[in-house]
């Protein structure tokens, strides 16, 4: 277990006031907010910042942490001295299970002990906390369903009531028809209950990996459809290979680039199924042979067409 220097993480001196600690936390929470930060390690930094603030913003936890002394270096191998926390009663304030699950072994060892108020049920029977994880799927998985093996780090109490992190591998059957942002619930696979209470659930948030041809919006699938000028002008029936099988799409005569064609029911499978939305893109063949140049020159001469003078 490595020592965590919470003062260094927040960038404040050891004698910083509560107000200074709060200000430093907010400044960093804004800089490393995972949804907006451009920093490459934003998510990891935010976990450390949350952990440091959970300790330094709580007077009891801060006092117990300070008692460890200032001679430790960040990352140094660490074991808490016996009785280091005598006389302190830790309380948890406003930190949800998903935060606690992100905290380090160092935090779990110091503040995660059952019976000290850190993560206690006060002797009551209590359901375990729900846990959150993110799962990345291919768009194809939504059409066929799949089974994924996921590795999780879950908190568990040992026989002495100490919180420990346990690696767990789960084989999860993902149902057909999932879409971006949906939550898959695995009943009873969250944190274990306390005092004989039932375990919580594991909630997996679905995200699709980027696909070279397809984009998902809700239940609808979006796709660019390259078409030749004659297909656009005369209309055509074009066969398409999609994750859900092949489909023939009829292009109406006079289709221009950018026109959207909706194929009902050919999006992600669900009740009701989504639509396939095609965006026509006229691709001009190169004039790289004498014959091709001749055809273009004939069109230029005979079609009397100026694309900049269209209504």
């Amino acid at each position: 277990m490595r020592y965590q220097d919470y003062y260094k993480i927040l960038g404040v001196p050891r004698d910083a006031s509560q107000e200074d600690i709060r200000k430093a936390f907010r400044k960093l929470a804004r800089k490393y907010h995972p949804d907006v930060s451009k920093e490459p390690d934003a998510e990891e930094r935010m976990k450390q910042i949350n952990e440091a603030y959970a300790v330094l913003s709580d007077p009891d936890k801060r006092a117990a942490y300070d008692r460890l002394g200032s001679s430790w270096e960040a990352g140094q191998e660490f074991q808490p001295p016996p009785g280091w926390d005598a006389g302190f009663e830790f309380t948890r304030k406003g930190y949800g299970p998903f935060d606690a699950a992100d905290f380090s072994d160092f935090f779990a060892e110091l503040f995660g002990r059952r019976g000290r108020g850190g993560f206690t049920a006060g002797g009551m029977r209590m359901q375990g906390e729900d846990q959150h994880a993110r799962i990345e799927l291919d768009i194809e998985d939504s059409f066929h369903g799949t089974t994924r093996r996921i590795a999780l780090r879950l908190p568990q109490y040992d026989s002495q009531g100490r919180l420990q992190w346990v690696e767990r591998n789960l084989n999860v059957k993902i149902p057909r028809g999932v879409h971006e942002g949906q939550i898959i619930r695995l009943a009873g696979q969250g944190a274990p209950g306390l005092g004989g209470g039932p375990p919580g659930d594991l909630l997996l948030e679905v995200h699709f990996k980027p696909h070279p041809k397809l984009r998902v919006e809700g239940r609808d699938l979006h796709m660019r459809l390259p078409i030749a000028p004659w297909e656009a002008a005369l209309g055509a029936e074009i066969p398409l290979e999609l994750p859900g099988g092949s489909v023939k799409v009829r292009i109406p005569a006079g289709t221009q680039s950018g026109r959207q064609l909706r194929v009902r029911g050919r999006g992600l499978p669900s009740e009701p199924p989504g639509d396939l939305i095609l965006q026509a893109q006229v691709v001009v063949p190169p004039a790289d042979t004498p014959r091709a140049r001749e055809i273009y020159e004939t069109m230029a001469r005979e079609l009397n067409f100026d694309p900049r003078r269209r209504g």
Partner: protein
Amino acid sequence: MSEDEVIVGCILEDSWLTLEQMAAACGVEPGWLLQHLQEGLIPHAECLGGTWRFSGAAILRTRRMLQMERDFDAAPELAALVADLLEEIDRLRARLHWLEPSA
């Protein structure tokens, strides 16, 4: 549980969450949720015969709002506004990524 056992997941959209399940999933008290529902700050939820039910999409939104309120002492309305903007950014980023795959 054996390593080879396969657990079957269920999509939350198909089975709505109750107020208590939603509170457990977000790590908040049911009262906190009720207060925010009454202010109209959590879409993806509906009230049928006096009982609230939530879709899966409400979890991410509620967690984002909770983070804003907790980290910055944001007023609930401001936290909801930030959650609206983050949802809009999610949509626009997905579209941008498709238009410019290198973006």
